[in-house]
């Protein structure tokens, strides 16, 4: 395997419903990423794109082919990935593999989604498609419903009183909103208090509005390159040093480990092993906080905190910048937004900029050398973890 670096990265501002098409959104992000890489579209040899619901939101299937032509890369192989919310992470991981294998020197990877454009009822319906359609959706389970059930299970399994767990979850949201305040690309630019979270309306017990990420429109793109081909293009190479992926079946079929997400444990183990590091080596992590409880569950499965203790860690600031591990300095899905097909690439965007010390000073993790991304699709059906290292 050859060394692979992330060269240029870009992200559109994540927003609520807006007028730009999926092609337009990704074209914006990719042209910026290509320019930042100091290459031209003609240098790009393949496109790997995450997009989960383009067909439902604007009637556009196979969007990757239209994008390739649109951004000045006609004729290249263009692949689309659907791993629900982890789609772009699958795209980045495969792009990494193709560059590492020696087949390509420059690959464009990323994702785009217009989830907010669908409106809440249709978006809720389509997100629920990432549950088992024939055996579980008939019960009326939704994406918040899945995490709501995990929250009750978490409280029971680890003997955390629900009232305390809700305060811990609110603390997670408050931290994410606070970081998002300083991220100009974030969808939410407001500060909330624990009281605001606990008084917002109930979506699915015990989750309230501010426990849940918004539906979002947006795109993110990155250029991956072989170390050799990029030699003269950057003096701040960020290496991809680990990548893992795993899958799982229906939620009820994961009974042996819930509320832990076993696919995440497999995926992160694969990433840590490839990188030759452990959780204690990670300085900053963008993890999949689609719901406040999801942050608690993820941080434990990734090995940052012991099972059942992460809520306490958040309340003590151990998951904040300056704590044991800086989690979601971007504002996370909660505050930055969650255009599902783009989310994983936006996590990579944040980690690369953190390692290059390019983010706003209020949310910069000082001296971060190793960063990790964690993206979950559906009920854990797809899980991707990637690890990045500062190369100078």
């Amino acid at each position: 395997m050859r060394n692979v670096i992330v060269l240029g990265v870009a992200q559109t501002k994540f927003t609520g419903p807006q007028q730009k098409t999926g092609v337009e959104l990704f074209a914006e992000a990719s042209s910026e990423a290509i320019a930042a890489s100091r290459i031209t579209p003609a240098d790009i040899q393949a496109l790997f794109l995450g997009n989960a619901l383009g067909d439902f939101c604007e009637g556009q299937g196979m969007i990757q082919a239209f994008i390739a032509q649109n951004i000045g890369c006609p004729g290249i192989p263009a692949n689309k990935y659907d791993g629900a919310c982890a789609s772009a992470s699958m795209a980045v991981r495969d792009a990494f593999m193709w560059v590492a294998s020696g087949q390509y020197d420059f690959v464009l990877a990323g994702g785009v989604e217009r989830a907010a454009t669908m409106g809440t009822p249709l978006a809720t319906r389509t997100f629920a498609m990432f549950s088992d359609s024939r055996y579980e959706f008939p019960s009326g389970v939704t994406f918040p419903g899945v995490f709501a059930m995990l929250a009750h299970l978490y409280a029971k399994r680890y003997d955390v009183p629900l009232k305390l767990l809700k305060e811990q979850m609110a603390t997670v949201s408050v931290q994410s909103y606070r970081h998002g305040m300083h991220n100009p690309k974030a969808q939410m630019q407001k500060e909330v208090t624990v009281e605001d979270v606990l008084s917002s309306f109930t979506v699915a017990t015990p989750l309230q509005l501010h426990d849940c990420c918004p539906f979002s429109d947006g795109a993110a793109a990155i250029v991956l390159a072989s170390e050799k081909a990029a030699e003269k293009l950057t003096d701040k190479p960020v290496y991809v040093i680990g990548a893992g992926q795993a899958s799982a079946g229906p939620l009820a079929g994961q009974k042996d480990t819930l509320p832990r997400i076993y696919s995440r444990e497999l995926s992160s183990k694969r990433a840590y092993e490839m990188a030759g590091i452990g959780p204690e080596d990670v300085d900053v992590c963008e993890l999949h906080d689609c719901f406040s409880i999801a942050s608690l569950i993820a941080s434990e499965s990734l090995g940052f905190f012991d099972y059942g203790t992460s809520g306490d860690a958040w309340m003590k600031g151990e998951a904040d910048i300056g704590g044991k591990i800086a989690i979601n300095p971007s504002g996370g899905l909660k505050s930055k937004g969650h255009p599902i097909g783009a989310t994983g690439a936006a996590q990579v965007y944040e980690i690369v900029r953190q390692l290059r010390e390019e983010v706003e000073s209020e949310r910069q993790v000082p001296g971060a050398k190793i960063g990790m991304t964690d993206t979950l699709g559906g009920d854990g059906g797809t899980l991707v973890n990637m690890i990045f290292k500062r190369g100078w």
Partner: protein
Amino acid sequence: MEYTLTFDEYNRALKKNRLLGLTCTKCSAVITPPVMICPACGAGDLEVKELSGRGVIQTFTVNFVAPLGRESEAPYTVVMVELDEGPWIMGNLVDVDPAVVNMDIIGKRVRMGETIGARVFPGDAYSAGDACRPLFQFEK
């Protein structure tokens, strides 16, 4: 290789309040909903087995925001039940007002209701037809 228990067979049985699953002839694992290969041992020799429809509530949520087309169902209670035979299954808890459901129901024994209606989600523009789900009530 033949698929031992199809969705259609499972769904038709559930409409008659019969819960079907599989047993693995090699490791004796009980499995539902159906799969091609035993997830416990990797064997493909499975037999259809009728399950009791009884078990213990493991977790739940009362859902207030329903998907498109199902708004009139909300609020409703989704439960995951550990069946006496081992597997967990998702369904609805129906003989309790969602407004009063709280964590006290975790650990309570339930059984599939015998005469409660509305078990079938009739399907929508995005479904391949109807699909039934278990409805649970507390064991008396």
